[in-house]
């Protein structure tokens, strides 16, 4: 009975055929495989197939070469087959190296299968199905569990950083434990709406931080429109598909792993100590309008006593220098002695944070029931005072074979986490850490000193008075029923429910600045329901035509609720909840919902796995638009040609696989406000106790989808036998039209802006990935991979606003009708503007000849007067870009762009026996960082309470001729520069830095305990790992937050990403 006969004429032995089909799909969790049946002839040979660890391997496909005869191994890895003498048996299994063994009359044939290096035949998850990498015609990047495992991270996105070509990942909340990372695929698609990709975990729309990295089987990123079009309306920014581990047939595999270690800063800023601080600031104040403040109670003033936040004062007559104080002569009056404390707030704020992670998982099953379950616990102390995160999570994926042709797949996950963070990271990292070293840490009674003001405090005070607890509870349950109707025809229905609850509690103890004892409680809830039905038909004809058809429907409903209550006036710090606070300030709740309905279909076809074709179509309806504009249609198509399958390409020595592909498609973006089309009156604008509503959004019923059209060409390449070197290349262009654009409205309208479908933007670039198994000799192996993605953008069309290039934002000069920055037609986005420095004015002659500087207050030590625009020696002279003899806004030019053009990573793995070393680095190039914090530091801002970096001491201009003699490279030190000449406190080519970096992201050394050890301990396996993360950044940028926090904002120091050293152990039972 041949396989074709079986499939084409199911009547003849249908029952038998079907049973085989089920077993295959069951065992391989995969696409249908075509199994030839052996005709009973010749001698019977039997044997066992095992994997390289010695475990039996069920489901291995065994065929007799050149015939249609074959069988598969049973759950114990055993097989028997009738063969002719000298027949060649071919053993094949997905993910394993295919083996050929000639039958020479052995009584039994025992085969050990070796795992295949990840290759062109791997299975790739695509929307609503899977496909072999070989026949894929779209741009999909995949990361498997082995690349994510054993990296002790709690965030999936962080673990993916640098591992996916064309995907930029950066840590939006920096080093905050449990913080999220942001993902941008191919630069995004929109201008001022979301550029976040759609994340789908096991078929359900979820957040990436909902999942424990240890539960992941693999992550796929769909990048081109032909692959994403099946997700239609929400797919313009790409799709991230996460598949979690499912149970495998066989005895229970139990794993326990734990790792622990410390987080520390990867670098410390080189700030001045108290003595240098006093020297710099008092000297600067003495020759400035702030001279009058030298004796005031300030960080650099002497009017302090024991109750002041600052420690600096004169030593009294006959007084000894008190304990804990230092002394120095007053730089402005050396006859007097200053005493002060010297506190390093960087050191006080940043301390090693202990991290511990535990995970226990079990995996196994019988033919009827298979399971994969895990629990995990993480407890992470941040390296910055008071920050903390913990999470407990559990997951159970169970599959039931209900009937011979009916499979029920279930999933359930829950996580509970608690986060303590800063209300505003800037309060600490752009302020507290920079607090003047003369500030007190504690008063005599042991209470914390308050620093400068409520947001510029002593970090210990900040942490002591504020409580911020965020609790997050997430639960997802879902099931999928799959029914094999006929050979190749399958129907599936699935339903998923997900609920997320968040509570936030904060309390501010009565303190130096505020005694209200404000307590806040917030509760929010998101409920999401998703139902899908999919029918799949998968069939081959005449050994040449392979066809796969998918059709389905999808329904999504989301309901959000937020509530908030605030009260103050409690009489004690002991009770920190609302009940103790008599004055109720806020009580509100808010509810919204949204719905999405989609219908989709896809056909993939190949001829002899040589010529490939795929087309898909989705129609989506979204509640975010008015009835008449609700539906959008999103098509996709792709073609591929595997040249190396052609007869004329056979027998080439090096070129093993070459596939050319091209694709094109359209996707949408619906991320406007849920009711933006209807206009909005905001409630809560109350007056005189009367409930008030105020029109805040103008209605726009014509709102519709933003559409992105993308085309992509690329190739897949495999070199040498077994594709030892694999490469992927893609070039793409995407143009978004009908941009959902937040158009500014004239002030006279009474509204700020309105969402409209206007404008056009283009993103384009290329991606390249290469992986190589360089060496494998005996116990030694070496592999390496590299990826690079380049992305560029250009604005093509903007709403007509009467300005040159329809520029929005930036600077527009009404006199010349020219503009710069912001966004404008024909220009690149995310520019940063500023003036260009020319030279440092070295003497009075140069000062008198300098341009009028609109930002200079012009206080001169010669006459003690402020004359706007006047310059004095030691100031920067700037380039007068427009030649009008005045330095002002209109002399600003583009100094750089804030978003990298090029991102990627490379890694290498060396193994020798049980030992493996893995090094992974990633990089981002082509962007600038506009630093606001270093500017403040050099500028002695906020009352002069900012600590400058040490190079100010040696590099700043002091006296005439310092530039000529080469003594100085930086402008004069000014007390509160922002109120004087703004030499430091403005955006210039000197405060905008090249952001290029190369990060040593992971170095990992692991050791598999030898069998002797594990046998002695009666364990299956044991593995030790020592790893380091974020070890170092190679960069010219002098700050510490190299990966800054957002697309278009200035770096304003967020939580630095910590360096982590972790020790881990993984035990298999």
């Amino acid at each position, binding site marked *: 009975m041949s396989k074709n006969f079986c499939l084409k004429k199911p009547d003849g032995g249908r029952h038998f055929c079907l049973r085989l089909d089920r077993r295959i799909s069951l065992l391989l969790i995969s696409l249908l495989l075509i199994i030839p049946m052996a005709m009973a002839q010749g001698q019977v040979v039997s044997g066992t197939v095992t994997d390289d660890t010695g475990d039996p391997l069920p489901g291995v496909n065994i065929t007799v070469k050149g015939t249609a005869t074959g069988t598969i191994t049973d759950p114990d890895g055993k097989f028997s087959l009738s063969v002719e003498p000298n027949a060649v048996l071919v053993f094949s299994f997905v993910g394993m190296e295919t083996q050929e063994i000639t039958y020479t009359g052995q009584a039994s044939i025992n085969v050990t299968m070796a795992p295949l290096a990840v290759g062109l035949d791997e299975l790739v998850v695509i929307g609503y199905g899977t496909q072999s990498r070989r026949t894929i015609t779209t741009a999909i990047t995949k990361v498997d569990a082995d690349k994510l495992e054993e990296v002790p991270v709690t965030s999936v996105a962080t673990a993916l950083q640098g591992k996916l070509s064309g995907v930029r990942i950066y840590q939006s909340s920096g080093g905050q434990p449990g913080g999220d990372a942001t993902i941008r695929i191919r630069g995004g698609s929109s201008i001022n709406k979301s550029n976040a990709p759609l994340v789908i975990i096991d078929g359900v729309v979820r957040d990436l931080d909902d999942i424990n990295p240890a539960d992941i089987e693999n992550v796929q990123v769909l990048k081109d429109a032909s692959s994403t079009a099946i997700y239609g309306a929400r797919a313009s920014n790409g799709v991230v598909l996460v598949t979690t581990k499912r149970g495998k047939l066989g005895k229970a595999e139990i794993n326990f792993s734990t790792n622990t270690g410390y987080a520390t800063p990867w670098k410390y800023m080189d700030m001045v100590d108290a003595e240098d601080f006093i020297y710099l600031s008092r000297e600067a104040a003495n020759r400035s309008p702030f001279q009058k403040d030298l004796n005031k109670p300030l960080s650099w003033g002497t009017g302090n006593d024991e109750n002041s936040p600052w420690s600096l004062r004169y030593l009294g007559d006959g007084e000894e220098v008190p304990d804990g104080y230092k002394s120095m002569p007053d730089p402005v009056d050396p006859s007097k002695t200053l005493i002060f404390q010297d506190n390093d707030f960087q050191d006080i704020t940043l301390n090693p944070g202990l991290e511990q992670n535990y995970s226990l998982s079990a995996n196994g099953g019988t033919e009827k029931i298979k399971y994969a379950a895990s629990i995990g616990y993480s407890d992470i102390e941040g390296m910055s005072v008071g920050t903390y995160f913990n999470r407990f999570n559990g997951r159970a994926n169970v599959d039931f074979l209900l009937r011979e042709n009916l499979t029920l797949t279930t999933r359930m996950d829950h996580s509970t986490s608690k986060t303590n963070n800063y209300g505003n990271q800037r309060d600490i990292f752009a302020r507290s850490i920079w607090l003047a070293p003369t500030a007190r840490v504690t008063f005599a009674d042991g209470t914390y000193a308050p620093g400068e003001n409520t947001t510029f405090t002593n970090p210990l005070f900040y942490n002591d008075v504020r409580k911020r607890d965020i609790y997050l509870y997430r639960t997802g349950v879902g099931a999928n029923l799959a029914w094999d109707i006929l050979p190749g025809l399958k129907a599936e229905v699935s339903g998923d429910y997900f609920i997320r609850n968040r509570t936030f509690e904060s309390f501010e103890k009565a303190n130096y600045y505020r005694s209200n004892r404000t307590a806040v409680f917030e509760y929010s809830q998101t409920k999401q329901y998703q139902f899908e039905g999919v029918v799949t038909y998968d069939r081959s004809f005449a050994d040449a035509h392979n066809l796969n058809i998918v059709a389905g429907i999808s329904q999504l409903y989301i309901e959000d609720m937020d509530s908030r209550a605030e009260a103050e006036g409690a009489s004690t710090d002991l009770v920190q909840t609302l009940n103790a606070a008599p004055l109720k300030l806020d009580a509100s709740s808010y509810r919204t919902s949204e719905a999405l309905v989609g219908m989709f279909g896809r056909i993939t076809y190949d001829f002899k796995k040589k010529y490939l074709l795929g087309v898909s179509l989705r129609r989506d309806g979204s509640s975010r638009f008015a009835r008449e504009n609700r539906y959008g249609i999103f098509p996709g198509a792709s073609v591929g040609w595997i040249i190396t399958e052609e007869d004329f390409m056979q027998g080439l020595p090096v070129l093993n696989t070459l596939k050319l592909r091209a694709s094109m498609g359209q996707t949408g973006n619906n991320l406007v406000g849920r009711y933006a089309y209807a206009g909005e009156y905001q409630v809560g604008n109350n007056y005189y106790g009367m409930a008030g*509503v105020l029109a805040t959004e103008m209605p726009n019923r014509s709102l519709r989808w933003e559409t992105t059209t993308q085309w992509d060409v690329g190739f897949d390449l495999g070199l040498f036998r077994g594709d030892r070197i694999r490469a992927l290349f893609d070039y793409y262009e995407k143009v978004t039209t009908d941009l959902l654009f937040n158009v500014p409205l004239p*002030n006279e309208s009474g509204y700020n802006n309105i969402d409209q479908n206007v404008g056009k933007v283009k993103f384009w670039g290329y991606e390249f990935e290469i992986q190589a198994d360089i060496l494998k000799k005996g116990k030694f192996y070496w592999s390496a991979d590299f990826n690079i993605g380049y992305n560029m953008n250009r604005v093509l069309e903007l709403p007509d606003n009467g300005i040159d290039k329809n520029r929005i934002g930036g600077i527009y000069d009404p006199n010349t009708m020219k503009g710069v920055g912001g966004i404008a037609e024909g220009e690149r986005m995310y520019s940063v503007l500023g003036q260009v420095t020319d030279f440092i004015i070295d003497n009075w002659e140069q000062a008198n000849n300098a341009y009028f500087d609109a930002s200079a207050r012009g206080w001169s030590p010669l006459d003690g007067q402020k004359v706007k625009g006047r310059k004095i020696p030691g100031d920067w002279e700037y380039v007068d870009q427009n030649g009008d003899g005045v330095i002002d806004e209109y002399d600003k030019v583009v100094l750089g762009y804030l978003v990298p053009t090029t991102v990627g990573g490379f890694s290498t793995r060396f193994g020798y026996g049980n030992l493996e070393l893995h090094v992974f680095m990633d990089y981002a190039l082509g962007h600038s960082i506009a630093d606001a914090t270093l500017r403040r530091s050099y500028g002695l801002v906020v009352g002069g309470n900012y600590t400058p970096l040490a190079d100010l001491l040696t590099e700043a201009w002091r006296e005439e001729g310092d530039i000529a003699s080469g003594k100085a490279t930086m402008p004069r030190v000014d007390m509160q520069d922002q109120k004087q000449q703004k030499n430091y406190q403005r955006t210039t080519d000197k405060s905008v830095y090249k952001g290029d970096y190369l990060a040593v992201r992971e170095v990992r050394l692991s050791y598999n305990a030898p069998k002797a050890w594990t046998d002695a301990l009666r364990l299956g396996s044991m593995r030790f790992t020592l790893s380091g993360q974020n070890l170092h950044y190679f960069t010219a940028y002098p700050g510490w937050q190299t990966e800054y926090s957002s697309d278009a904002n200035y770096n304003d120091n967020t939580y630095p990403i910590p360096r982590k050293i972790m020790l881990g152990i993984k035990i298999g039972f």
Partner: protein
Amino acid sequence: MKRYRILLGLFLALTIAGCEDFLDADPYSLVTSQNMWRNEAEAMAGIAGMYSQFRSTFNDFDFLIYFELRSGFWQTGTSGANQWDDLFLNTPNASSTPSLDWTPFYKTINAANLGIKYIPGIDFGNEDTKDNLLADAYFVRAFCYFQMARIWGDVPLVILPYESADDENLYPTRDDMEVVMAQVKEDIDMAYDHMVDLGVRNRVMASRAAINMLKADVYLWTAKRMGGGNADLLEAEAAVDEVLADPNYQLLPSYEQVFRIEQNSEIIFSIYFDILEASNQYGMRFMLPPGDIESQYWNNPVPVSSNAQWLTYVDDYVNNYLLATPGDTRSEVVNTDFQPGTVLYRWVNKYIGEWVNEARNDVTDTRIYRFAEAILFKAEILNALGSTPEAIIELNKIAKRAYGVDDFYANTLTQEEVDDAILHERLIEFGAEGKSWYDIIRFGKAFEMIPTLVGRENEYEGNILLLPVSPNTITKNPNIVQTPGF
């Protein structure tokens, strides 16, 4: 097998059917343009929302920038984070001077325009309520345009609400100040006619008296600054007389109590503040934070605030006005100087909010019109009409409360001397109440009295008393031209 097929068919049928309803997401917590302005309650909510926006428009730095900072009386406080030099020095600059954006004004005006458009079509149980709400809308619109015309001169006159981005008038041009003021006067008449409530109504929304005060204010301005002459003075006088005759309003015996008791009988119109609605009245910018005060003086006598002190009076004003006449009971209320040692603590003592639960809430209502101003308006009008002796009688009512002396100003003073006296009294009486800048201009003394303005009449093409428009306003609407001279 068949069973499953039926099940599948059923599932498909269920999911596809009813899609349209499924996609109608209920807005639950939101009012949209489709469900607003349908009934009395929504009309009242719309008007309350308008006042709430009005409160934010005339508050905080904006209020001080428009009405106080240019008069030469102010300097940076202990923590001058903001750069107000442009205003102190009278060198306004489109790109560096703050608060030049029109958005807050037009948000209020749009709310008023929506009310004026929709309220007439709504059925009310009581027609009087409907008329009163319309009066509120006209009153607020008139107030906004009056101030805008004084601040910027020509401004776009928008009297219909914008409800679609396709509106062809979405990009208006600046209308002549005369046209704007004509609309202000028409709105005042509309407000007056609709205000059927003849009594006090309340002291934080429009009332007959509040409308009359605005009318007097407007007509006095056009009489003196826009060539309105005696005709406008007589309009102003009629309006003031109605207020003076209203027994609901009178002078409080104590000047300090005017600012310590909210909505007292001297208050004709004020902007309401409350911890539950808004607790950021501009008085917070005058008070000292604890870090600037030695601890033994915290609230004894120096009021402690959680905000930084951004503004204080200059010595000239304290010495030449507040301390000009010994025994002036207003002096300590307008400004308190406290100097226990070497450090001088100085703060405006009018808008000090409340000290509750160890914290200061900045919730004193902003006084816009009070009875004292009705008396001083009357004096100013009489003097301008030539009835100087009668003007002195009115002026002395204010002087009596201030100095405790009858006939403080002799009835022998000349018309010019009386004008000077009225201005002098106004500058003390309404200290920090947002009157000084336009009072000095109305009396024609700007280029005399304000040191930084002396001799600068022709600078900025003669528009030095106006402000430029923010570049942002022009960028968003290229039909707007910059105020000439800036």
